[in-house]
């Protein structure tokens, strides 16, 4: 906080932020809602919903192909959204931003596009080639690569984990090697909270000429991202985790790559010349946006970027780090509770997985819900991580910009209550 005040910024006023989110006024099971399921999806502020609604009520039409006023206005709004997202990500060119329906589509887009490349092309993947991921990937950045390898005969490799929830880079040089076509990895893990050393991994990928794809689903909502500084080839985010509605994600890719990659989804708007006997394709981003795009969702995502930028992602990150530290300290202080993932706030995000001895995560989640506290239980779409740490599932609390220290304390008390109930 001192640093922020020193920098001339008003102190972060979480109550002002909370007032923008109608759902936070709700009660659940007779208790005020404590929403700590943000790694799964965030709530949406009025500003984002209002921006989308104003657009739909006054300027809506299909985009790109019309000369009439509404279609011009809709196209302008949609393309302005692209520019806003590009700026938000530090991209040099708005044409590097492809709108998808979620992050999952984006990984599949790259995997299928590579799979569609003619043998001998720089993108083609085949027997003898390798794709490398990590053992902490979300299923969405794992299964598309498994499927690609299955289709093409390539080999999938993965970087294993250490006991304290970090990447074990001992064998990095073997796992990422001259045969590696793609290194796809998560920026911040949704289950462990771990923030990975992008620089180390990118440096190794560059040495061997592998393409890099960074899964930013859990980083873009929480910290300043600069795709150029990160040095990756592709970066993926998903709108619904960063204040935007469901139904919109982003693939950022270097323009030079996007323009050269084979198409993925075929259809309207991604084409140049269509004859019955065959078609040619438009340059990026149109090439990868087949059909009517996610128009009003992109407009809403831009409003979410504006909201985050206005608040200041540095301040958001500082606020969240304080909450995460408080939660970690509290969990460490409880008997019979263990954290799965990094123990401190050092290089970690706001998602904190934990286990309570003798109580199953389902029962923890249900019992906390009875106290109004929303956490997520399960494998969090990262089943291999659960297997790695020998648990069937975890309980995960993940805070965001509208959470308070009081809510963290409520969770900690809730856990104590759960322990009392289930240990009777």
């Amino acid at each position, binding site marked *: 906080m001192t640093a922020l005040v020193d920098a001339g910024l008003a102190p972060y006023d979480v109550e002002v932020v909370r007032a923008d989110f109608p759902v936070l006024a709700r009660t659940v099971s007779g208790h005020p809602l404590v929403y700590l399921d943000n790694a799964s999806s965030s709530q949406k502020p009025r500003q984002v919903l209002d921006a989308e609604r104003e657009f739909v009520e006054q300027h809506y039409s299909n985009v790109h192909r019309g000369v009439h006023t509404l279609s011009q206005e809709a196209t302008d709004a949609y393309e302005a959204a692209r520019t806003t997202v590009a700026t938000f990500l530090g991209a040099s060119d708005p044409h590097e931003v492809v709108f998808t329906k979620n992050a999952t589509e984006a990984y599949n887009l790259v995997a299928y596009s590579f799979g569609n490349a003619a043998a001998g092309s720089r993108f083609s993947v085949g027997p003898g080639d390798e794709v490398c991921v990590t053992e902490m990937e979300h299923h969405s950045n794992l299964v598309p690569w498994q499927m690609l390898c299955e289709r093409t005969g390539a080999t999938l490799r993965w970087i294993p984990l250490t006991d304290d929830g970090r990447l074990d880079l001992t064998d990095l040089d073997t796992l990422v090697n001259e045969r590696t076509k793609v290194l796809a990895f998560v920026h911040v893990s949704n289950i462990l909270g771990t923030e990975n050393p992008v620089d180390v991994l990118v440096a190794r990928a560059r040495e061997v000429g592998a393409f890099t794809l960074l899964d930013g689903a859990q980083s873009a909502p929480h910290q300043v991202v600069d795709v150029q500084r990160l040095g990756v080839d592709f970066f993926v985010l998903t709108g619904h985790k960063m204040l935007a509605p469901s139904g919109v994600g982003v693939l950022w890719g270097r323009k030079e790559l996007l323009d050269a990659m084979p198409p993925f989804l075929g259809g309207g708007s991604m084409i140049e010349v269509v004859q019955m006997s065959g078609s040619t394709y438009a340059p990026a981003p149109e090439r990868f946006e087949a059909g009517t795009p996610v128009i009003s969702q992109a407009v809403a995502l831009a409003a979410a970027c504006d909201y985050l930028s206005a608040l200041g992602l540095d301040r958001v990150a500082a606020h969240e780090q304080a909450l995460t530290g408080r939660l970690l300290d509290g969990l460490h202080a409880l008997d019979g509770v263990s954290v799965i993932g990094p123990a401190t706030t050092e290089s970690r995000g706001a998602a904190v997985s934990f286990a309570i001895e003798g109580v*199953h995560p389902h029962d923890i989640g249900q*019992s906390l819900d009875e106290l109004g506290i929303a956490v997520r239980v399960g*494998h969090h779409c990262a*089943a291999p991580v*659960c297997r790695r740490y020998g*648990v*069937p599932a975890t309980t995960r609390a993940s805070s965001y910009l509208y959470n308070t220290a009081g809510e963290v304390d409520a969770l900690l008390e809730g856990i104590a*209550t759960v322990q009392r*109930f289930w240990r009777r």
Partner: protein
Amino acid sequence: MADESLYQEIILDHYRNPHHKGLRDPYDVEVHHVNPTCGDEVTLRVRVADGVVSDVSYDGQGCSISQASTSVMTDLVIGRAVDEAMKTSEAFLALMQSRGQLEPDEDVLEDGIAFAGVSRYPARVKCALLGWMAWKDATAQAVAASSGGAA
């Protein structure tokens, strides 16, 4: 803190003191079922003799709902004719799919009626069914094997 409708005392009792737990011999068929969304799993053995479920034994890990419902299940099927036990299992399935709209029949489901509230929590229905589905699978296999042998 307990929501009365979900964590009934009966459920908690069965969870804390499960009936018939532990894998036993002799048995005809052993199955292993998993609930992929939460990692719960059960290994279950069935012995069928003369058209009667003569024993069911099991081991596994899971939440209170899945553990308790497996325990209740063993009470309801052991010693019963296969046909009758299958009908009980259908009744339990119907209750679970009722979203709180069905009044359970205590004569049929006994302690199983405590799970009526679970049907209002769709995310937990699969937990309550894990042991039942494993039993049904194993029993069907056992019956098929024995009738196959008789043929």
